[in-house]
């Protein structure tokens, strides 16, 4: 007998409560450690400043409208996300790949790892830019558009006007620019586009990149920073170390709005557009909700909120009530979109590995 009037084999009320509490805590702990519930929707996109803006403009309103929980997986670049899809044979643990770029989408279609998406699943697909729909295989839905602009430090450099100002910085800016030029690994599509511009400066293009390698060699002594992802470049802008860089228009617009002394220009030779698209891996658990999410991304209210927050152009051309400042810097009409240069995606898909190896040989 003990003080609680129970025998050794009996459970006291206090002991019972202690054990029940421990079991509950353990149970909750296990669930929290395990994390995802089967009815949660897992959306993969980017981290950094993108994460906060995307959650506020897209994810939270979606959760509110559909009464579901969205887990935002912010790990990885587009190619890293596709590597996960491939390694898991289409079941990477996320239901929506919300930030794939065209080369990964094309590969996903070839390898049969992304679901085909039609108007039946995503009714808003009919409002997306016609030219973008034709450029992408039917396993991805364009939701926004960016382009490769030139970003420059206004305190240090005069406004660049040509891609040549980036590729031959010494000719335009002299010795002071040494060590303040950034270059990107072609694993980042931004680098591929910049190299295509370099090739075009020398009379080549995606089918003849020799002029690009010559310019890369001549630029190398002036380069101070080499990175792979666009996010890696951001601290170098904030520290003022990098004075000129190709950069995605959306991120450039965002950083400028945050007060860094940089300006963004569209060089006279033009820019190449990057189609941001969303796909559903074939092994996704919540396909129905995944399609709803993609459809929701294309709703006019979502497009307005997201595009203005992230300084990107919309995925559909029928929204007309944009603010004046937004219209001046973005592509919002069909006429504008028709004039946008889309990249030769097949050439990029076939040659990207060789270009990267060539880049490594020059920069290594």
């Amino acid at each position: 007998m003990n003080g609680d009037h129970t025998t050794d084999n009996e459970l006291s009320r206090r002991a019972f409560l202690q054990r029940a509490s421990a079991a509950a805590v353990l149970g909750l702990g296990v669930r929290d450690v395990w994390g995802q519930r089967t009815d949660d929707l897992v959306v993969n996109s980017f981290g950094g400043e993108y994460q906060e803006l995307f959650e506020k403009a897209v994810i939270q309103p979606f959760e509110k409208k559909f009464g579901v929980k969205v887990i935002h997986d912010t790990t990885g670049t587009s190619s890293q996300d596709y590597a996960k899809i491939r390694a898991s044979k289409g079941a990477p643990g996320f239901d929506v790949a919300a930030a794939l770029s065209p080369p990964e989408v094309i590969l996903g279609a070839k390898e049969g790892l992304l679901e085909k998406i039609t108007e039946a699943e995503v009714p808003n697909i009919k409002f997306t830019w016609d030219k973008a729909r034709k450029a992408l295989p039917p396993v991805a839905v364009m939701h926004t558009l960016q382009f490769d602009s030139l970003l420059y430090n206004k305190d240090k450099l005069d406004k660049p006007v040509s891609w040549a100002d980036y590729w031959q910085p010494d000719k335009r800016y002299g010795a002071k620019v040494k060590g303040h030029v950034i270059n990107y690994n072609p694993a980042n599509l931004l680098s591929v586009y910049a190299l295509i511009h370099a090739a075009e400066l020398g009379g080549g293009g995606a089918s003849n990149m020799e002029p690009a390698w010559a310019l890369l060699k001549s630029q190398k002594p002036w380069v101070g920073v080499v990175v792979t992802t666009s996010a890696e470049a951001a601290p170098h802008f904030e520290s003022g170390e990098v004075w000129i860089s190709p950069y995605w228009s959306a991120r450039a617009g965002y950083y400028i709005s945050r007060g860094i002394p940089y300006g963004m220009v569209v060089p006279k030779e033009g820019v190449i557009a990057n189609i941001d698209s969303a796909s559903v891996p074939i092994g996704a658990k919540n396909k129905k909700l995944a399609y709803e999410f993609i459809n929701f991304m294309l709703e006019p209210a979502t497009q307005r909120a997201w595009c203005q927050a992230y300084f990107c152009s919309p995925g559909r051309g029928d929204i007309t009530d944009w603010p004046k400042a937004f219209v001046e810097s973005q592509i919002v009409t069909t006429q504008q979109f028709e004039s946008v240069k889309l990249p030769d995606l097949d050439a990029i898909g076939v040659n990207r590995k060789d270009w990267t190896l060539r880049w490594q040989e020059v920069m290594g």
Partner: protein
Amino acid sequence: MRSGVPAHWLLIALPATVLLAFFVLPNALLLSASFLKSEAQQLTAEPTLDNYRFLFTRPLYLEVFLRTFAVGIAVGLIDIVLGFPLAYFLVRSRSRFKGLLIALSLAPLLASVVVRTYGWYIILNRFGFANDVLLNLGVIGERIPFMPSTGAIIIGLAHALLPYAVLTIMGSLNGVNPNLESAAMSLGANRTRTFFHVVMPLCLPGIAGGFILVFSIAISAYATPAILGGPATQVAATAIYNFIIQLLDWSLGAALAVILIVCSLLLLYAAARLGARRAAL
């Protein structure tokens, strides 16, 4: 009558199963992928030796391997040179704070390698602490890009892996009877001679073990080389990552990984043999 499976087989059954499932099997898949052709980033069923031919004929990848092994050897040597005196002090110290000192010397293991590496990033970058100090002291006239570079990778890894060398050497030093040193000195040997002719030879297995451990981790390290070396100063791990994750070319990535594993095993075998022979002498 006793029958059935011997007890020692049962003991190793679980670790053997885990190793088979999570090491041997993935590596077998890796090996097979290295002999398959990739076309437009897609793995085909066509067998080929082209992946190895490609890697062995490109100077870039020979440089990558040379850099990888140079980093491994340099980091191993630096950590042995730095770790031995520290381990000796920690083992021989009679301070009441001995436990605390050991904990402090191993404390870096508690911080993520990424965090420790970013510490070096802050120090070594062109606008970092090292450049500021050297400029202010007038040692340099203009900022020096200490990174990205092989030297920065060596510094970062040597710092990150030092506790492994210290721990291994301490284990060996703990097994050396201090009376042997007293005996050597009572027979006329001075401290230096005692150290080099008594302590060091008895610690050789620990030194070899520390070197092998640090070398193995250094040649397969990814985070530190990626941060301090960047995309233009590649080592084997970052090149493999680049092939498999960025370029989605599994064949070349697998071939590079196989070469790294084979070279590492050969070098480790040679180092282990050498360590064992010297220890036996």
